[in-house]
């Protein structure tokens, strides 16, 4: 039951024919069959829509050629290996400016270093050593860093070694590589700020 009469058809026969032809070219003609009263036009696919479709297909072909076929792009594994070795080289270069005890003590009297170190310490170290630095003595996991006993040596460079290499057997991760040389020096400065300089 086609109840919805096409508006174009109500005019004169000739004009109707012309209109129908134009509409047919545009797909603006209703299909004969209806489903539960639902009618369907048969409009052309929009060009911009086709362009996105064909464009995505073209991209697929090109990208596959580039990445998988010609292997012009590095594999994800090769890319990350390369990037990590670049980073390692940069780190090795920067660690050449070696820190000694005197410099670290000097930093520990420098407010900029100490304040920056406190921030890093509270963010990274305090989970075990606590923000009070008293660690195990106040229920934490790490050593107390403000008393006078040093399990792994109390010289600034000893502390540096612990941070850089960790004490894996005791659960102290190697933080140096994670936070970097600058922040490591700052953290040491912050810890030393609780102690008397020699």
């Amino acid at each position, binding site marked *: 039951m086609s109840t*919805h009469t096409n508006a174009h058809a109500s005019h004169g026969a000739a004009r109707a024919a012309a209109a129908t032809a134009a509409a047919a070219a545009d*797909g603006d003609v*209703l*299909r004969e*069959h209806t*489903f*539960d*009263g*639902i*009618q*369907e*036009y*048969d*409009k*052309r*696919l*929009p060009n911009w*829509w*086709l362009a*996105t*479709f064909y464009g*995505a*297909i073209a*991209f*697929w072909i090109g*990208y*596959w050629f580039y*990445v*998988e*076929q010609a292997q012009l792009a590095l*594999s*994800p*594994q090769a*890319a*990350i290996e390369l*990037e*990590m070795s670049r*980073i390692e080289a*940069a*780190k090795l270069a*920067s660690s050449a400016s070696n820190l000694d005890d005197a410099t670290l003590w000097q930093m520990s009297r420098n407010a900029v270093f100490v304040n920056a170190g406190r921030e890093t310490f509270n*963010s*990274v170290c*305090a*989970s*075990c050593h606590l*923000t009070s630095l008293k660690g195990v003595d106040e*229920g934490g*996991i790490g050593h107390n860093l403000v008393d006078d006993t040093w399990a792994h040596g109390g010289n600034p460079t000893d502390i540096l070694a612990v941070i850089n290499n960790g004490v*894996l057997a*005791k*659960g102290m*991760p190697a933080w140096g590589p*994670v*936070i*970097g040389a*600058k*922040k490591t020096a700052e953290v040491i400065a912050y810890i030393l700020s609780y102690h008397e300089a020699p």
Partner: protein
Amino acid sequence: MSQQKLSIEYNDKIVRQFVLACVIWGAVGMLVGVFVASQLNFWRLNFDLPWLTFGRLRPLHTNAVIFAFVGNMMFAGVYYSTQRLVKARLASDFLSQLHFWGWQLIIVAAAITLPLGFTRGKEYAELIWPINIAVALIWVVFAVNFFWTLARRNEKALYVAIWFYIATILTVAMLYIVNHLSIPTSLLHSYPIFGGVQDALVQWWYGHNAVAFFLTTPILGIMYYFMPKAAERPVYSYRLSIVHFWSLVFIYIWAGPHHLLNTALPGWLQTMGMTFSLMLWAPSWGGMLNGLLTLRGAWHKLRTEPVIKFFVAGITFYGMATFEGPLLSIKAVSALGHYTDWIIGHVHAGALGWNGFMAAGMIYWLIPRLWDKPLHSTSLANIHFWTGLLGILLYVAAMWSSGITQGLMLNGTTEGGTILSYPNFLDTLNAIRPLMLMRVIGGGLYLVGWLLLAYNMWQTLRGAVPVNGSVEVYVDTAPAAATAQQRASERMGWLPAFGNGPVLLSIFLVGFATLWMVGSGIVSALGIAGALVTLVAGYALLYSRGKSWQDWYEKLLLNALPFSVLVFVSVAAGGLVQIIPTVLVNKPDNVEDRLQIAYTPLELAGRDIYVREGCYNCHSQMIRTMVPDVLRYGDYSRLGESLYDYPFQWGSKRTGPDLARVGGKYPDVWHLRHMENPRSISVGSNMPAYPWLSENNTDVAALPSKINVQRMLGVPYGPLTPQQIFDDVNAQAKAISKGLREAGAYVAPEKEIIALIAYLQKLGQSEQLTPRAVTTAARH
């Protein structure tokens, strides 16, 4: 030809039942959603109770929204529209009732088992194996009821909505069954038959296409019925229906690996996932165009009709989400957005915007027709619309900002790209807290809107009389010979169904393209040549034979069985090409680089506790091939390092940090304290506390059966007697307990926390295999 008039009364009772269930479960699912979102802001809402923790409730939320809310909505819409589109009553009242009550029983079973910690540990596939079987059976009941109705139809041709329903029923069955293949270890526990990378691929083939064929295709079918009905306008374009239907169902299946970009998944699968996702953009928008442009000439209804408002907003959100999906599938964008709230925002644009609003529009349209009474209050429906819309916008905007903020912070590096800008994960979590709160408000508003619908419906239904629709059809009573002759002219056998231009060309094109992609050398070249020839031939034939192809398709639409088989062939293709090579090739024997060391019995018990508590909802175990991931978590994860993981636990969200290499990073006592009270270690953490792990005993008795199944699956366990297993467990547990005592904390060896610590300390341990020649590592 003489005809007899026949009056058919539709089974609208079943539609009413499913509509009511949809409204109720929708409210429950959204309520749980608002609750778990609040838990992320206020950890105290976990109440230190096992069955109220985020890790167990989040699967309840996702399953409730997908299978209970949208599931019931889909069944209501499919049953209502199909009967009318084929002019036949549903084939069996018994099957309809079985379908309804079976499905509700499954939902109740899920709502009980998930909080109790019974889970398979795979997203949207958490339900345990006895429930899986029930789901499969009830789905078959649905299928039989539906196809039987089609067989008895009084409308010869199949309307586009029916195409989408057919695709839904067949594909969901395929996906569900394959991804739930498991071997039980007990009545309530099983291991999936795929592990590690294979499980990851199968899971996301399923997970992505559950979105496609459970949340999208049935709703598109519903749109194709209810939108022209409500707008009282013709559908925009029939040929667009054809093109976007076939391209959508075919391409969708291939896009699953976009959930695993930059992971240990083989590169060719990642490339396939990304490129096919981009090709999916246009087919998806075809559906949006056909929905929105159906309103041509009736846009004024947008001002007055709540139903049209919901449909137009819903379809617009569909368009937005299906643009965002391909965008997020680009590897570089995924590197930023994956594991963050951006993905959560993306799925909610779909679930709240598309599914929720289409459900609301459909229900507002159905209520007066199913109960023969005008809606209680149109203005209340309008308030629902604006409340819901505001809710979605707040939600999605919050999650976009949150995801991009956290992604930028996590990926941010300093000092020439050598150091992380925010080495502490918690800094990035606490930066997004205000946005996480805004999400709760948005979701809460959406829930309020839904409750308005429930209230409006309740007020309408009070005192209303249910009515069933009916139709009069004319059935041929011509002499049998004449009828048979006409039937024969309409019938399409298998040969014409497959042996014709469009189908053969498509099969050749896909076949050759597949050879090109997965083959190498001469095979690949053959694929290119074949594809080109097919393309040219197809183009030429389209011009010479195009008209006959149209006639063929019209005839195919009269034949439900060949049509359904063609649909199944096109949805099966992608999975076969991706899964079969992965299952055949990525086995322990073929692995290069590194191979995981199998878990000891105690570690396996700990792993099952990890799965039970749903840790994967917040923690990934996959360090991607990206500098920030490697700087933060250690060397990138290798394919072989999770090969014995049944199920895989790569995760899809990092509310907390990645755990792939957490083993050995902290001492045992760190983990003990952290699990008892995360904030004692990590200030500002939003992780729930797990005090019960220090109270409950590890289920050692289950281990012999579990290890037997794992051995069957290919994990290299020697022939262990139960006693050997128990001895092994005791020895390892005692050592851990002793270590804890020395660190000043005593926990008895038989407690669950000991097993969990054993598991966590194992993470990341693998054996280095002799590197093979690089050439053999070609592409696959």
